[in-house]
């Protein structure tokens, strides 16, 4: 494992102490118990846990019906039906509980403030017409939208709200990826807890290549074929640069010193070290293009998306290219004309995409899951269950959420299963993971225990029924936006449903009604990225009013009505 710079005097007060602790451990190799005496504003977690009498689903081996997992200084020290519990351990009675490896989201932007990647590099992702202040890219030599030096690990924000949401839903680990541009940057495997330095498990864990354009018709590449040609040229340039550097190294006399190109150096490294390189492709033709681009560039391709991979599962298995399956199954657009005849290809994709995991499994292909644009872990589990209904064995589904991604990204020696010596990223549930009534009771990230977050909501029972459709009008200084809610409220006031905006759809999470007040959160599409929007308000008869908070940055008032009601 690569050790990373530990920065002193971090701007984040909360991160400083953790970093100091980590440094102390790294430098001195001393037991952390010594640090317990240091003053602290938060209680220090104990370094030892033992979860006993629990059902243990190890993933790597058989299920242990009643056993113990011992956690020590962030690692799994022992697992089995008959293991010694250290005297110092905080013993947790796991009766009726099941311990799983923490879930691993195979491709995400967790911990990254979205749209902060890319930056103002030459020809980088530009405005609608490549205008504004963006320089125009005149060809491959301008390295358009190419920022392989951008590293997710350098940009982690432990305050990203999604980390806690994902963790509470059972995810302890993720591949997180800068997502702007063509060669967007270096992905990292992160733990979903701790400060920015502690979160990093492996970096770089992968390189990410999209089929995006440079932005605008005046910047190269402006077409899909331009992007494909560009990526081929970039890899050819990287290989040439490596060959030239090697020749110069061997005999510099009479040769010009190689020029350093930050857009090439990481690509050269990725070729030399065989980094997994993620290419995107959902339709059969796109998947095949991704596989072929891997062959043409010599990159170690991983294909992500794969909704139509059910058609070519055997071909993918034979190619040996690992597949990341997007669990955000295709749906008919909510704004589609209900009278319009849906194309056969679209119907097939919607009907058969969830059979992809079962087909890949049967074909013996290497695959793992990722959450795509799904807004909550609950939806992830629901959509995994759809794949299980379509024939994917549950143990294969669990593997695709744990050891599968760990293997693809080269961290299976540390993550993905419950084995002595691995990182203690674990979850404890009160039932089978894929039973939708099951709750995640405890989450361990790097051996630290995270409690369920207290729901921030009033507890009074609802006095109004919000079930049904609502149309909200949100006014911001720049525009007025209309959004549609389709809600269902249960007796205890839990609110679920969907939100439809002119920029896309989202599922409501953390929804509640109490008295005549309500609140919910949605990860809303906002022009190519998503933003967390928190709605709170009150209901009066057939009208609602309240405030929408956009990513905690600004708020807008909204009003709304039930459309067509009583007419």
């Amino acid at each position, binding site marked *: 494992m690569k050790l990373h710079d530990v920065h002193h005097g971090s701007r984040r007060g909360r991160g400083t102490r953790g970093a100091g602790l980590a440094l102390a451990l790294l430098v001195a190799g001393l037991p952390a118990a010594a640090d317990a005496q240091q003053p602290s504003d938060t209680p220090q977690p104990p370094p030892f846990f033992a979860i006993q009498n629990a059902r243990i689903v190890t993933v790597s081996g058989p299920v242990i019906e009643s056993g113990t997992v011992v956690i020590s200084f962030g690692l799994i020290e022992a697992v089995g039906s008959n293991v010694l519990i250290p005297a110092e351990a905080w013993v947790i009675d796991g009766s009726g509980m099941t311990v799983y490896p923490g879930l691993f989201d195979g491709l995400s932007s967790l911990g990254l403030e979205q749209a902060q990647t890319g930056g103002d590099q030459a020809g980088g992702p530009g405005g609608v017409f490549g205008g504004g202040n963006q320089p125009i890219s005149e060809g491959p030599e301008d390295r358009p939208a190419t920022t392989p030096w951008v590293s997710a690990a350098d940009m982690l924000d432990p305050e990203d709200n999604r980390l806690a949401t994902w963790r509470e839903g059972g995810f302890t680990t993720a591949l997180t990826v800068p997502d702007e541009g063509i060669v967007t940057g270096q992905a990292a495997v992160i733990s979903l807890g701790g400060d920015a330095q502690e979160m990093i498990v492996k970096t770089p864990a992968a390189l990410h290549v999209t089929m995006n354009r440079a932005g605008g018709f005046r910047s190269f590449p402006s077409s899909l074929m331009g992007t494909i040609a560009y990526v081929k040229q970039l890899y050819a340039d990287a290989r040439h640069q490596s060959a030239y550097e090697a020749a110069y190294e061997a005999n510099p006399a009479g040769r010009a010193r190689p020029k350093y190109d930050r857009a090439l150096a990481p690509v050269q490294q990725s070729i030399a070290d065989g980094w997994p390189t993620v290419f995107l492709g959902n339709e059969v033709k796109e998947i095949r293009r991704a596989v072929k681009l891997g062959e043409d560039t010599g990159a170690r391709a991983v294909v992500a998306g794969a909704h139509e991979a059910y*058609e070519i599962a055997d071909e993918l298995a034979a190619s040996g290219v690992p597949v990341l399956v997007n669990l955000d199954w295709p749906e008919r657009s909510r704004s589609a004309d209900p009278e319009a005849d849906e194309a056969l290809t679209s119907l097939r994709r*919607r009907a058969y995409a969830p059979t992809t995991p079962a087909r890949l499994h049967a074909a013996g292909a290497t695959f793992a899951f990722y959450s795509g644009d799904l807004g909550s872990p609950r939806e992830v589990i629901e959509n995994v269950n759809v794949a299980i209904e379509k024939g994917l064995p549950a143990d294969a589904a669990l593997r695709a959420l744990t050891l599968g991604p760990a293997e693809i990204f080269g961290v299976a020696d540390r993550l993905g299963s419950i084995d002595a010596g691995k990182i203690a990223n674990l979850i404890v549930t009160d039932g089978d993971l894929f039973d939708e009534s099951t709750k995640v009771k405890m989450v361990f990230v790097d051996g630290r225990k995270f409690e369920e977050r207290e729901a921030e909501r009033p507890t009074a029972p609802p006095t109004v029924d919000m079930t049904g459709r609502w149309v909200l009008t949100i006014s911001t200084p720049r525009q007025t936006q209309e959004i549609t809610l389709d809600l269902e409220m249960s007796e205890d006031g839990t609110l679920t449903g969907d939100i439809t905006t002119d920029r896309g759809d989202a599922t409501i999470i953390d929804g509640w009604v109490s008295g005549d007040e309500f609140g919910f959160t949605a990860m809303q599409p906002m022009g190519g990225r998503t933003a967390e929007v928190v709605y709170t308000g009150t209901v009066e008869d057939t009208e609602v009013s309240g405030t929408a908070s956009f990513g905690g940055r600004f708020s807008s008032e909204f009003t709304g009505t039930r459309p067509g009601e009583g007419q």
Partner: protein
Amino acid sequence: MRSFKIQIGRGAVPWLAAIGLVVGPGTHRATAQDQPVLIRNATVMTATNGTIQNGSVLFEDGRITAVGPTADVGAPGDAQVIDGTGKYVIPGIIDAHSHLAADAINEGSVAVSAMVSIMDVIDPTDVNIYRAAAGGVTVSHVMHGSANPIGGQNAIIKHRWGADAQGLLFEGATPTIKFALGENPKRSNFGGAPGVEPRYPATRMGVMDVIRQAFIDATEYKAKWEDHDARVASGDRNAIPPQSDLKLDALVEVLNGERLVHSHCYRADEILQLMRVAEEFGFRIAVFQHVLEGYRVADEMREHGAMASTFSDWWAYKVEAYEAIPYNAAIMTERGLIVSLNSDSAEEVRHLNQEAAKTMKWGGMTEDQALAMITINPAIQLRLDDRVGSIEVGKDADLVIYDNYPLSSYAKVRTTFVDGEVVFDVDADRQMREAVAAEKAELKGLLGETETEGGVR
């Protein structure tokens, strides 16, 4: 799970099934029928050897094995016989200029986009592949757009509907590249965005400058590689290969005559200009596309060694297209040029037979000359005339059966074969519509969206 892929589906019609019609992704090549097929007693228009009344065509393993008067064509006992009485058979139509079946057409950001290739973005799911086959088309030259003086690399496909992108490509075809002259590459009719500097060139002389400079660069680049190869050959083990450049690689192929130039053009002056520039660098323009003023410079084009691919009667849609005449194809033919008619359109491609027929009305072309313009002539222009373009023994069994005389607005395609396999059949098409409706209903049921109360949730 249902996996039958499309339209012309498994078992659509018993005799179609009998000749091995199985269309699925990536499986096309493996399913070539091996039972001989005899089309018997039809009017066979060969395109190269006149018309045979009461003729028969025999094909097997995707190749034509016999053609002639019915009495002379013996069929093996196991042959599948199609009664051609009252019907017409022509070679598969070849469209020398198309933009169907591609997910991108223009890389318009740069004046020279020779590094990009339509072959990278073939869309095998584009239904226009099938619809063109329903119009008798079996080969299309899928071209990059005309936004650049030197555009991208083109693709030549066979209309093997159901094959994947690689399977559609015409194997072994000589590579081609798109050039463009006039209003499109100088962006006359395309407004830029506010605040965005317009792209060079903006004039016809600028277009020539871009092409000339590109070939100066390509010549230097070629010399660099030749120098490197010479050093390696002389035993220099320290030689480092020059940096490869996908754009210049394609232009070096043009210089070497290994990649054919198909240039979009309209006006006589720009046609002459381009020929001069090409001759400066020692290569030839293979085919002028559109070439609406070709009738004015047909002799010069013939002397240069160029051919022409034009429209029948489509003009005046922009200033540079005002001087067109419907006699263009006929005049160029009479001046000794190989002339083809193309569609440049996913609609017109379905009735190229009518476009050919128009040259008989305007210009007095013979039936054979008219038919050649959509069959053997485009085959020659694409250097594929050893494989396709006529009904001759040894050529690919790319054939079209018409219910009536093909060079007419009453013509209707009955069956289209590519490599001896049915890619369109009018009866199978009708049955397929029912199969599609049934599959849609089944899928909706599977999705729990059986249509009730006006719409689905």
